[in-house]
């Protein structure tokens, strides 16, 4: 063909790279700001300067402040960051894997299985002689439910031929079954159990004990650590499974790694904070609008946006009806739903 002047692709590549670095930097600052706000706001306000001083090891000026910061708010903010980032990265990876900006790890049964595990433990636990006393027992039951459901879905999908459609359909069926099981348990549960489980099914960062978070840390970090390595492979998946294969990828293995890493991470998030919707959709969507669909930037940007949104939602949940507290899942739903509709109507032409 006509070999004209060979222009370098993207003459303003470096300008664009600088812009992207700037965006990531700003997002990082936003997360830092939200974290300080999350640590400072509440019934006992702590000024930012004091927070920073305490975080950097100075003895607290006021002992109550020290106790509130380290025993109550810090675990909560850390959990918020990890859960928000994890849900966002898992969502972004799933959307890449399924080439669908609306995909979410929920479609392979993680959330519904986790809910069934937790609700089953709350309602049936006492009858089986298990008790709330074991602080790790509830998250463990939820985690087991989440992974169990995912394994079941993956197994059934493999039996049905292993196609993406089979995976989605098996996920829908198992999620429906798990939801029915959950409904049945709710039906037979008593009042006290219902209160416990409502909070849980709607998500909250308040329930997790600090040592539970430490136990869950490796699982929460799994998708954050594993998925960025697969960024280029996920880019290729956006072209299609055949094309990804032509480019030398082992598509079956890639799918397996993504499903395992996300279900471990989302399973842990569900176990420690309940079911929190919309972060996994909203954060990657915003990141794609700002930075394009390439996963090398999308994954870190989505993680930062997810963490930021999660912290914001948690602060809102704590302040909106103080001194009571809303389940944070309600807040993400209230913000996420309208926001999504607004995007749908106004940003059709965006880069998403």
């Amino acid at each position, binding site marked *: *063909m*006509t*070999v*004209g*002047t*060979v*222009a*370098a*692709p*993207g*003459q*303003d*590549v470096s300008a664009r*790279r600088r812009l992207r670095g700037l965006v990531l930097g700003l997002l990082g600052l936003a997360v830092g700001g939200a974290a300080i706000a999350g640590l400072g706001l509440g019934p006992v306000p702590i000024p930012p300067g004091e927070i920073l001083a305490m975080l950097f090891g100075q003895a607290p000026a006021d002992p109550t402040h020290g106790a509130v910061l380290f025993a109550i708010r810090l675990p909560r903010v850390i959990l918020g960051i990890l859960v928000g980032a994890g849900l966002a990265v898992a969502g972004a990876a799933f959307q890449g894997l399924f*080439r669908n*900006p609306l995909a979410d790890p929920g479609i392979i049964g993680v959330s519904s299985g986790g809910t069934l595990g937790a609700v089953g433990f709350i309602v049936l636990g006492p009858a089986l002689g298990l008790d709330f006393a074991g602080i790790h027992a509830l998250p463990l039951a939820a985690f087991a439910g989440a992974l169990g459901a995912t394994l079941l879905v993956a197994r059934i999908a493999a039996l049905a031929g292993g196609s993406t459609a089979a995976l989605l359909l098996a996920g829908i069926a198992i999620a429906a079954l798990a939801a029915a099981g959950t409904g049945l348990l709710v039906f037979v549960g008593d009042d006290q159990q219902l209160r416990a489980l409502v909070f849980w099914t709607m998500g909250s960062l308040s329930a997790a004990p600090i040592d539970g978070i430490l136990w869950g840390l490796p699982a929460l970090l799994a998708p954050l650590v594993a998925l960025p390595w697969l960024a*280029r*492979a996920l*880019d*290729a998946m*956006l*072209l*299609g499974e*055949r*094309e990804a*294969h*032509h*480019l*030398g*990828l*082992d598509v079956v293995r890639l799918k397996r790694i993504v499903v395992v890493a996300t279900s471990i991470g989302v399973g842990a998030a569900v176990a420690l904070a309940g079911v929190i919707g919309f972060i996994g959709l909203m954060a990657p969507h915003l990141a*794609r609008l700002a930075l*394009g*669909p*390439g996963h090398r930037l999308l994954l870190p940007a989505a993680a930062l946006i997810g963490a930021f949104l999660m912290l914001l939602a948690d602060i809102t949940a704590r302040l909106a009806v103080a001194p009571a507290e809303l389940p944070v899942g309600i807040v993400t739903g209230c913000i996420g739903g309208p926001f999504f509709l607004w995007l749908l109507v106004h940003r059709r032409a*965006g*880069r*998403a």
Partner: protein
Amino acid sequence: MLAARELSLILPSGRRILDRASLSVAPGQLTAVIGPNGAGKSSLLRLLAGEARPAEGRADLDETPLARLRGRERARRIAVLPQSTHLDFAFRVSEVVGLGRLPHGDDETRGRGRAVVAAALAQVDLADYGDRLYTTLSGGEQQRVQLARCLAQLDLLAGERPDRARYLLLDEPTASLDPAHQLAVMTLARDLSRRGLGVLAVLHDLGLAASVCDRLVVMAGGRIVADGPPGATLDRGLIAAVYGIDAEVIANPVGGGVLIAPRAARCP
């Protein structure tokens, strides 16, 4: 040599989509595969790309079964342009072409990858399109971007000859192109073959196939029914047998090559 040896692809119903098809894609040669819709052309290409396992027979790259090659090794030697690719995500054109660099471990932003991507875009006549959003291109432009991605995957800069033979498998590369770009893409395919690549192109334009290709492989009903130089292969009898139309193959009086002139198309 990329070779199909007695390949068969059999549906659970017992129907043979491919029936003992043998073919070798030779380096330095431009081969066209022609045949009616459903003849099995894309299926043959899928097996040569190592995408599916044949029910019978083998597909080999230099005597090694494709299934035994590591993906990355295979991808450095065989690039495939599928019949259609649907990409809904708003990548920039240079990013899409840069995906062809995946088996080479670099991308469109630096070093050799950057140069190869720029050269690939220039070769498909889209030198200035690097920063455009892929989703805003026309169908034919998108098709050419995908071809550029294959070129970037084959890792050739102007004037370079590959040390080991590489293969380019094109499934209807001209389907959505205007006449000028159809000719340009096939000329490019021919040039690449002259630089030592083995190029296989599925085509429906018999005149174009016979005019630019070194060899015609004719498929019908899952079988290879003819294989040889265009002049000796394509004639009135073959066209009637394979397509069921009465057409004359005549020498192009003005430009060389051949023209296919239907006497009367029979509509069933």
